[in-house]
């Protein structure tokens, strides 16, 4: 009985709000110049998809070829996302202070929700593919920073930011890329300006292109740069981290 009462109250409340917002939303609003436009505090949902160039990501059963002509499959993919932020029309940023360990193979954290985003006009979204210095050296060890998740570097400072593993299907030789390090943190900024969306529950779709890890600005080759990267200071690690800065793209906004 109580439950039903509470529910109808919520519905009533939200329907009121709807009327409110429709009156304040004007199609010719001069502030609505680009990107995401929120008329009231709202939940922002970000969905991630992964692929390799124009190919879909299939674990184990699909072979991929990078710019250096290495052929390999992908058997595991885990990484941290942190410090999501969106940029308001006045160029200031709102920071979400999230830390999420994504396990792509097992579908963990492929959707992130950020509640109570203030009304306004947003032009860009940014995030780190890894952990900032404070969290990388924190001794909190809780939640997604729990070392039992297997992403904690015992003999290096901090955490593995990005792990990708697989093998060459012909030689069966495995590769294992463990990237991290405070000086090797890819920071990605994506424009929302190509989109014009007004939504009560905005959803941003971000596509991560794994092919970009191996190219632009510099090609990475398993033969020349190594099958195993387990150090944040090796030239291969620095190359990969730089390449990762253009691996994400906003593909949908609704």
């Amino acid at each position, binding site marked *: 009985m109580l439950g039903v009462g509470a529910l109808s109250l919520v519905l009533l409340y939200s329907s009121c709000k709807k009327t409110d917002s429709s009156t304040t939303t004007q199609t010719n609003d001069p502030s609505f110049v680009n990107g995401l436009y929120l008329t009231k505090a709202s939940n922002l949902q970000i969905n991630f998809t992964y692929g390799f160039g124009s190919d879909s990501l299939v*674990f*184990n*059963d699909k072979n991929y070829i990078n710019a250096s002509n290495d052929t390999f499959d992908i*058997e595991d993919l885990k990484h941290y996302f942190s410090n999501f932020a969106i940029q308001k029309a006045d160029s200031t940023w709102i920071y979400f202070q999230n830390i999420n360990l994504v*396990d792509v193979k*097992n579908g*963990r954290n492929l959707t992130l929700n950020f509640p109570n985003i203030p009304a306004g006009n947003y032009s860009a979204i940014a995030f780190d593919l890894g952990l900032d210095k404070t969290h990388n050296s924190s001794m909190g*060890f*809780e939640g997604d920073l*729990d*070392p*039992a*998740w*297997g992403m*904690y*570097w*015992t*003999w290096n400072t901090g955490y593995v930011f990005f792990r990708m*593993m*697989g*093998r060459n*299907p012909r030689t*069966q*030789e*495995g*590769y*294992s890329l463990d990237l991290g390090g405070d000086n090797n943190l890819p920071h990605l900024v994506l424009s929302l300006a190509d989109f014009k969306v007004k939504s009560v529950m905005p959803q941003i779709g971000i596509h991560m292109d794994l092919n970009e890890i191996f190219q632009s600005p510099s090609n990475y080759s398993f033969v020349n740069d190594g*099958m*195993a990267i*387990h150090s944040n200071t090796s030239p291969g690690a620095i190359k990969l981290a730089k390449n990762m800065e253009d691996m994400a793209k906003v593909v949908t906004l609704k």
Partner: protein
Amino acid sequence: MKLGNKVGLLLLVIACKKDLPIENTSYNPIPYQLQLPIGRTWTQFPIPSENPLTVEGVSLGKLLFEEKMLSANNAISCKSCHQPAYAFSDGGKQFSEGINQLKGNRNAPALFNLGWTELYNITGHRFFWDGGKGSLEQQVIGPIVNPVEMASNTKEVVNKLQNSPTYPRLFKKAFGTDSITIGLVAKAISQYERTLISGNSYYDKAERRERLRTPSEQNGMIIFSTEKGDCFHCHGNLSSAFFTDFNFHNNGLDEVSLDSGLFRVTGLPADRGKFKTPSLRNLVFTAPYMHDGRFKTLWEVIEFYNSGFKNSPTLDPFISKHIPNGGLNLTPIEKTDLYNFLVSLSDTDFVLKHK
């Protein structure tokens, strides 16, 4: 003589209890306080909301774990092959004997720190060497009905327990009903298994500064946790208390696995020859080693990882990356150091506490 008196007294107490009025068997379970080891890495693991730990449930679970009526010929219990003195493994046997001396093809795994599997393994494949079951409650039924283990069936087990003079009363106390089901049997045994926590090894004592590591142990720890020995990728880094990643890997035992491992469960070719990473805690009690118990000693295990692993399409990349160097190339002294570190993960209090 003294012992005889005690037994007599015990029987008397039980006999008295049987005649007690009904309110003593009422359902009023006491929440069980789990004793977690000290240290921040021992986080609380999830307890299923439909099976909270209670003092009555845990003690019933222990009785059932030791109950031979769970087998078809009333000859073996869970404990027969998971002996407390061997950290709940089978006392050096490669393959355990089920009823009528039948043998399976897997080594009885040690049982401890199982609750954390349900926290850190986020797939549906958690228990048994091949990940056949996703929760302890589901796992428990397997050995009861396996023809080479206890070879019983759920109906028979429930009938025997229901007709016993003691069990209906104990189920009533633990679960509020004296109508026994196999689900309640599984719940009780799972409760008991969740209380089997081992975290007081020589390693833990050193972590708490209650003892000093020997120089050899210290060096072995460095070998374990660096690319030198490269044990940590699967057996967990030192900031995690469990010495397993709770996941499945092909560690290179065979070029072609006779036992397909996780593949049996998922049907995915990529899972061929993958088995659950066992915890390295209590190794001195849990010989022989590997899913098929092929290695009798820890020395054989260390030499296997040093030079003996085999390549195959599903060999873990963490292992295959050592192929270009022909293995780990540890010196005899380094192997001894690693051995000494591994041995320090033994918790004698755990095996003495559980009988």
